[in-house]
């Protein structure tokens, strides 16, 4: 069975500082990996995804994540965060048969001035 671990439940950071949100997955087969973001009182939005090819994937708002097969990790990074990045971030792995997403428990990113 697939599983996802997000060890950090909350990450406080100052504005313009770099941040890394950690994600480790467990799977015996090839996987697709995703980061979703949830702003307060909203549903989830796709931030970025790894399907195949380059192990470094980027989003349009400055986030990036690197797929590391040997370490079974897909950490999310941003070199300089903004107040507006305050949200909850979920890492997920996809079941290839029905595209069921298995989610981690989420990491709340708190950006303060």
């Amino acid at each position, binding site marked *: 069975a697939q599983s996802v671990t*997000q060890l950090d*439940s909350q990450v406080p950071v100052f504005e313009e500082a770099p941040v890394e949100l950690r994600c480790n997955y467990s799977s015996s087969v090839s996987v*697709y990996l*995703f980061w*979703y973001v949830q702003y307060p009182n*909203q*549903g*989830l*939005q*796709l931030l970025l*995804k790894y*399907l*195949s090819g380059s192990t470094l994937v980027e989003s349009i708002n400055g986030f990036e994540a690197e797929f590391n097969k040997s370490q079974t990790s897909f950490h999310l990074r941003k070199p300089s965060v903004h107040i507006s990045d305050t949200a909850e971030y*979920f890492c997920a792995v*996809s079941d*290839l048969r*029905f*595209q*069921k*997403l*298995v*989610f*981690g*428990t*989420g990491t709340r990113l708190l950006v303060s001035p």
Partner: protein
Amino acid sequence: DVKVTQSSRYLVKRTGEKVFLECVQDMDHENMFWYRQDPGLGLRLIYFSYDVKMKEKGDIPEGYSVSREKKERFSLILESASTNQTSMYLCASSLLQTANTEAFFGQGTRLTVV
């Protein structure tokens, strides 16, 4: 603009009531999902459907059932609501294919059972 619409943002129901949560998508997606979101537990899959009238149990189906009579609509049913079903419920849809498996989510329904 792709859209997954959940019929209610907030619901308050009494213990023992039968509760219907409705979800509609306009993207002609085959897959539809119901997740439950609780603090510290992330999102957990309740049920999913990959075709009309088809359904599969997820990780926590107990106390829930689903209905998919039309491709665009997926309903979650709480047969007899209990206080431990107080939660945020999220509906999602995606295409049935092996690549580009992005799921699109609704805004969520926050259900309180009193």
